[in-house]
């Protein structure tokens, strides 16, 4: 494999990291039955805050910590408004998404384009020397290695542990979970906060490692949060499929970078390129449920019908049954 291909593939592993954390963080929140639409604003705000704190304290760790804390605080507003006050989760999430974005641009303005500190690469000894695999997977900063572990842990937690299975129960049939003695709303609070912290980490991951620095509106981060949300849907609320979506999106970003250096397409157009694709993928995973598709299928001859419906079923994803619905004890 030539060098450019290796760098591109390694770049994908790196660019996927913040999206992975944000999308899987959202995955935990949505599994519990809460939608948190604020992701895009949260990422911008924590990218700015993480950058500024790391710059002023010369501590990367504090930068990431403040990101997680802010993410948690924003998620706390979502949780309180939707669980305790029973307000529309979409409304609260959307308000927070714009509010946090404006807050980031307002407070971050004095720090636009300032040189800051950032995470350096720590290749893993021996492993990095393996041909092909080494340079792609093991020649990164520590966050990339953390992301490998994170995907596996998220999967194991959700599908192989008791609390993980309980979490699925809360999202699918909260009343049943409640009858078995689970404090549904308390658990929802907890998962929203934890997921919020994970989403909050995505910001500093950009500004301190993956897309170093803060330059306000020109940071090119506006929109990634919405992509992360779409990836959660595309991934069918399953960490491994979500991870696949994140790598796919990172691949697109890499393609964009390559195209930008070889052509003169304005960067804004390349940045918009993932969005039609986002719509298209959502169409793919949802269309199997549409009424007219079912009608058309029924009218098809046996053989193609079986094939088409099999494909549609494979693509189709279903949200947790109670997603967006407040839980009330009767």
């Amino acid at each position, binding site marked *: 494999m030539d060098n450019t291909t290796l760098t591109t593939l390694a770049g994908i592993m790196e660019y996927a990291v913040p999206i992975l954390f944000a999308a899987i963080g959202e995955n935990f929140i949505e599994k519990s039955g809460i939608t948190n639409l604020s992701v895009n604003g949260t990422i911008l705000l924590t990218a700015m805050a993480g950058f500024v704190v790391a710059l002023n304290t010369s501590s990367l760790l504090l930068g990431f910590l403040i990101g997680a804390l802010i993410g948690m605080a924003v998620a706390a507003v979502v949780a309180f408004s939707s669980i305790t006050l*029973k307000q529309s989760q979409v409304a609260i999430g959307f308000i927070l998404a714009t509010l946090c974005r404006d807050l980031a641009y*307002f407070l971050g303005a004095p720090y636009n384009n300032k040189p800051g500190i950032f995470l350096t690469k720590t290749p893993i000894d021996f492993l990095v020397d393996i041909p092909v695999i080494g340079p792609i997977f093991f020649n990164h900063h520590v966050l990339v290695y953390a992301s490998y572990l994170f995907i596996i842990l998220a999967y194991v937690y959700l599908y192989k542990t008791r609390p993980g299975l309980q979490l699925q129960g809360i999202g699918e049939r909260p009343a049943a979970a409640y009858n078995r003695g689970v404090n549904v709303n308390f658990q929802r609070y907890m998962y929203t906060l934890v997921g919020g912290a994970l989403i909050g980490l995505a910001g500093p991951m950009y500004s301190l490692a993956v897309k170093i620095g803060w330059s306000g509106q020109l940071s090119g981060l506006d929109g990634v949060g919405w992509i992360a949300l779409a990836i959660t849907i595309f991934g069918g609320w399953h960490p491994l499929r979500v991870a696949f979506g994140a790598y796919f999106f990172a691949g697109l970003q890499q393609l964009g970078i390559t195209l930008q250096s070889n052509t003169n397409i304005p960067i804004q*157009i390349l940045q918009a390129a993932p969005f039609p694709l986002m*719509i298209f993928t959502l169409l793919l995973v*949802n269309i199997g449920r549409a009424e007219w598709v079912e009608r058309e299928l029924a009218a098809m001859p046996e053989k193609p019908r079986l094939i088409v419906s099999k494909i549609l079923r494979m693509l189709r994803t279903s949200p947790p049954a109670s997603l967006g619905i407040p839980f009330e004890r009767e």
Partner: protein
Amino acid sequence: MTVQEKSPQTTSLRSRINWLDLGLRVGAVIMALLITSLILLVANAQPLKAYWNIVLGAFSSTQKVSAVIASWVPLVLTTSGLLFTFTAGLWNIGMEGQVVVGSVFCVGAFRFLDQTGLDPWIVITIAFLAGALGGFLWAILPGVMRIYGGVNEIFGGLGLNFVAKALAIWLIFGPWKRPGVASMSGTEWIDPQFRLTYLPGTSLSPVIVVIALIGAIFVALMLKGTHFGLRLKAIGKNDRAAHLLGIPTTRYFLLAFGICGIFAGVAGSILVTSKQFSLIPDAGFGYGFLGLLVAMLVNYHPILSSIVAFFFAALSVGNVELQYMGLNSYLAGVLQGFLVLFVVMTNGVRQRLYKKG
């Protein structure tokens, strides 16, 4: 909440609760101001001075007041349009993109009809119709994708916002680029004869105020006093029940999106003919997003929304004055965001108190 109560006892309860309502609303505004003041302190600025500068920036001269009104017009239109989709229980987050595409179609019509020698008013009318068509088409898309593709309209609309912006930029850098060099500052200006004339000494054309008022009144009448409005409301409350009662929900969903898009397209055309005179990358100026916030703040009430839109427009215009304090103009967005957030949250508090009381 709007149940009619008749016994005297409940009347006194209601008046007490109205005081509570008022208290909660005022409390929400005070909270928003307090927390924004904190943010200003973090940014090393004196809050009171900043607020005073915003007031000055919005009202200290005829020119500024006219700018506030000129900014109120597109905001009233986007908010009014959104009341249709909100009433039907739909989230038209794609509003911003619909304003952009409205502007694109409007500028396109001017480019197409530039040399025809038609009467300017005819050309302007056609351009407005084109803008409305653009907004309409762009709004129907998320509706179609939701109904026939199962794609949640929030994501459909959001994605289309980004696509609309990319479309504008592609036009600015490609087919519609200025002779010579293309730049982010936009396409070539439309011919002066197609620009709406300002009142002397202001930056406000009276025609657009008339359009805004017609739009706002149209919405209030449609939603309050017609079969259409009532059915839309029924769908918004429970679309399955409405469907079972024989209301063609699919058609109403698409109509709500379409009407909303027409409002967006007209707003875009107004921005082209009375503010920007060309197509720029940020052709929506955030009016679509701001309209969503206003609609949420007034709990989807038509008349209140026009008043709050004026206040929000004043904030956005006055806010520009902050640059003399070394602050950028995102403060308005911060204050607006906190206002809506606290108002929505206090709605929840009120509902809880109602239940207990």
